[in-house]
């Protein structure tokens, strides 16, 4: 079977979601034995979703819901599994841009849950997460990544950091990247959104509030990158 380019991309998005679902651990979404061909991978994913989602995985979800990873598996149960199942039952088509979009969104959500899970002790991660949730509700696919040994800024500084990045993140149309890293004795929050810098209404409130906060904005016609740094003043 000759696959058109667009069709291939659709399938790759589906594969991406299935890979993320498999990574969530405990869920052996077996996608067939030797499905090297692209169309067979999709067929196998669909078959596996139909077979596994209704048996092993639902039992697993039900069991796991009782432990502290409730949210992670709750998301699988509420959004990922119906999506995979719909594709499997033929009520949703992987060629449908909306289905493709949902698959991409769910993959991003699951990735973020992972990233956050290892950083639950960091209140800044939680506070950034609430803005990420809003951006997702507006339909953007948000990737989150944190690195380095980071200090925890005081509450006022955390609020200022979130204030500075929020306008760009909330202006994201389809995708955004949020990062958190260590920078000297401070931290660095970065947001890249797929929106021209002219379409972001930057606020200077956070920046003006404290000499410990500094901001860099890099903009092109298609992307806006806001970097905000908190540097504790020497005392």
């Amino acid at each position, binding site marked *: 079977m000759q696959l058109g380019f667009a069709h291939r991309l659709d399938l*790759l998005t589906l594969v*991406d979601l299935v890979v993320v679902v498999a*990574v969530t651990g405990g869920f052996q979404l077996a996608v067939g034995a030797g499905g090297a061909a692209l169309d067979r991978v999709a067929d196998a*994913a669909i078959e596996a979703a139909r077979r596994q989602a209704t048996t092993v995985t639902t039992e697993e979800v039900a069991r796991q819901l009782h432990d502290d990873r409730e949210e992670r598996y709750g998301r699988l149960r509420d959004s990922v599994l119906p999506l995979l199942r719909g594709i499997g039952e033929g009520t949703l088509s992987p060629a449908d841009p909306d289905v493709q979009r949902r698959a991409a969104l769910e993959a991003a959500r699951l990735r973020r849950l*992972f990233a956050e899970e290892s950083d639950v002790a960091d209140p800044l991660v939680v506070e950034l997460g609430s803005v990420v949730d809003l951006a997702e509700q507006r339909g953007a696919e948000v990737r989150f990544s944190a690195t*380095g040994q980071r200090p925890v800024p005081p509450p006022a500084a955390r609020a200022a950091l979130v204030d500075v990045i929020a306008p760009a993140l909330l202006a994201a149309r389809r995708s955004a*990247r949020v990062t958190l*890293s260590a920078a000297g004795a401070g931290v660095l929050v970065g947001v890249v959104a797929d929106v021209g810098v002219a379409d972001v209404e930057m606020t200077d409130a956070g920046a003006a509030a404290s000499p410990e906060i500094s901001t860099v904005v*890099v903009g092109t016609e298609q992307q806006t990158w806001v970097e905000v740094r908190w540097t504790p003043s020497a005392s």
Partner: protein
Amino acid sequence: MDPVSIVIVDDHPAIVDGVRAWCAAADPPIVVVGAGREPSVAVCGAGAAADIVVFDLQLETGVLSFHAVGRLVAAGRRVVVYSQAADDATVLRCLELGVSTYLTKAEGREHLIPALHAAARDLPYVSPALGGVMAGDRRADRPVLSDREREVLLAWFESDSKNLVATRFGLSVKTIDTYIARVRIKYAEVGRPASTKAALVARALQDGLVDLDDL
């Protein structure tokens, strides 16, 4: 030229099929000659001749996974670690062992495929996550980076876009690539010697990415 071939060590069938699909759709395509959950798949049968071992670092098996990576590298294999783990200690330990590069599973096909093409030619490939880890390295014996090198790495981690990094610093994408590659070569120079690291350094010298004074 023969297509790049890989063998996948991963215990999730879905991951294996996902990577197969990405490789089949890659330009130029990458051939998957073997896959399995045990590292032995990379040393026996068709997998033994693969250009690259794509290795899922199973943290549940603890130290065994690192040992397997170390043995493969010692045997002269190019290893690309593709793992769910993104913590700094794990990533740095793999670099020390001499892997070609390290990718997190969250980075997906847009980084795995170019990383495999680069690894096959002994060229450095630094994903944003790896860049972030190297920029944040605080170990006493870490390689010495210039301020600009660290800034560029952090910017790459933040933006996942070399165009944005280039715009920010007023440099060309090629220059940004050189900064990132140079840091990777510095890491190749520290830690345990391995033929794969030597190849990486030799190639970088050959291509003028670094000169001997940088090392």
